């Protein structure tokens, strides 16, 4: 049983001398306990993930089959959900909506990465008048519910004529508006020793050069985490586009999906399921390619401090 290997570290040197009765009993207990853990974790994990697995299978099923059996495997696999769903009931295909999502995400992620790095560097490496107060506002913004600022923000963007454009979705993030990321980068920066930066300064580099050539390379894993989280959050964002984007030609995937629920006639389920799979695909792909950055990001942002 492989589970027993897990406890090698716990009984160092015990293999050299003959095991006593108590040790054997203890080891057996541990083996059983870890078997129970594995079983519970596996069963529970499968129950949790089955809806997602089912979704992928169901997107290839015929409409008649979707509500006929709980199994994952389509009896009569068809691509019709994907083909018909992609077309939509609008003059545009989902290609247009994915392109819009891309147009929203790219500037937003780049703006977030640059602005949050600059601001975190300012907080972590400099002293300036008002720094303490400003840092308190970072924490306060972190806890401030968006719901309370949303209406005046909308009125502001309406006043300057930015409605139905991507600007309201880009600009707040491009000025380090997501306090969570600033906070996370400050935490990472505090953990990086300053020796290299001081050496660079002695050699005549200015602070911006030090940031670009010394700090950013060391901070890269954290910056990547920030980009990935912002990517996911923007992919999932629905309320932002719902408020600011009104014409269908500017719809991102999330709004288009809502539109297809509203406009699809009953009994045409596989179209919506197929498009849901496609809407989840970018996030899932990015997550599996870069999962360690997510786990590190969330552990550091959340625990330290």
């Amino acid at each position: 049983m492989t589970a027993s290997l897990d406890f090698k570290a716990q009984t160092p040197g015990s293999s050299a001398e003959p095991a006593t009765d108590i040790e054997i009993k203890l080891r057996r207990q541990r083996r059983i306990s870890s078997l129970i853990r594995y079983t519970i974790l596996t069963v529970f994990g499968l129950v949790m993930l089955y809806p997602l697995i089912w979704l992928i299978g169901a997107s290839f099923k015929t409409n008649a089959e979707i509500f006929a059996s709980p199994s994952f495997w389509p009896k009569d696999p068809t691509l019709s959900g994907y083909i018909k769903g992609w077309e939509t009931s609008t003059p545009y295909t989902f290609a247009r909506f994915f392109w819009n999502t891309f147009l929203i995400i790219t500037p937003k992620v780049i703006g977030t990465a640059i602005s949050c790095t600059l601001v975190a560097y300012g907080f972590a490496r400099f002293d300036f008048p008002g720094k303490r107060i400003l840092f308190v506002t970072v924490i306060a913004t972190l806890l401030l519910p968006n719901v309370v600022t949303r209406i005046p923000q909308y009125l502001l963007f309406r006043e300057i004529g930015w409605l139905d454009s991507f600007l309201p979705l880009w600009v707040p993030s491009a000025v380090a508006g997501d306090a969570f990321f600033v906070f996370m980068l400050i935490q990472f920066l505090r953990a990086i020793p300053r020796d290299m930066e001081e050496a660079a300064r002695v050699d005549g580099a200015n602070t911006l050069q030090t940031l670009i050539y010394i700090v950013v390379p060391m901070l890269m894993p954290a910056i990547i985490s920030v980009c990935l989280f912002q990517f996911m959050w923007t992919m999932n964002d629905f309320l932002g586009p719902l408020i600011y984007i009104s014409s269908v030609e500017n719809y991102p995937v999330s709004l288009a999906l809502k539109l297809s629920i509203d406009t699809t006639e009953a009994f045409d389920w596989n179209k919506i399921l197929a498009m849901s799979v496609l809407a989840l695909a970018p996030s899932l792909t990015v997550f599996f390619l870069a999962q360690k950055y997510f786990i590190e990001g969330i552990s550091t942002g959340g625990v330290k401090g």
Partner: protein
Amino acid sequence: MGGDSKYLGFLYVAPYVAGLLLFTAFPFVASLYLSFTDYDLLTTPKWLGLDNYTKLFTRDRTFNKSLSVTLLYVFLTVPIKLAFALLIAVMLNYRLKAINLFRTAYYVPSILGGSIAIAVLWRYIFAEAGLVNMVIAFFGIEPINWFGDPQNALFTITLLRCWQFGSAMVIFLAALQSVDKTLYEAASIDGANQWHIFRYITLPLITPVIFFNLIMQTVQAFQEFNGPYIITEGGPLKSTYLLPLYIYDKAFKSFDMGYASAIAWILFTIIMVLTLVAFWSSKKWVYYAGDKRS
């Protein structure tokens, strides 16, 4: 860094300050002002004094319903979600070889959970003839009307959020892994059993993280929108009509910006009071090791 102007650092945080003033501080104050006005976007805001608030608390039945549904939702979701997250984290924190695999698997719903596609999926699997009812039929349970019955609808929405316990779990797990192992050894030499070790060593040491998760999850749960908006549209009989939905309808459907701001401020006040209570009570139950913070 010596020699630099003391305003140099300010230059780096300048974008943040601009954003803070323009997109946070100004809207924050403006929404408080708007909450005392009648503003329909067409004419200038008209000062009403406390009228919006008195109407909300005395004459608005929808608000009453929405407020109680929201509180019920938060007080159901946050404890269940955190309990799950902690339980699974404790089970994973046991020299399991497959720890990374499990951690990833449990984290996936957190990554996707807020999206519209998942809300759509929820609609399908909890439909009358959906996956969940098909599965429970195997065990001889009568199909449950998950969304149609006001008694169940809120619970089904709650499940969606509890399903996303992964991010809280990852934070718990990181904290559990940083607990000094020698403490466990010392305790087990002294004859403590597993439960005692968890109760009197592990749990006190991770209270800072419990506190962090509790606050973040509560603040987020109060703002849930996507789930009920897509899955139940607030119904049936407003049983899932959370306050953010009401604010959205008032602000962006009936363009009653003043009234919507008043609701937003009530929601904000509730969140703030609960957060302050948590911070205040944390002195009593959150354990901070002397040298842990730098």
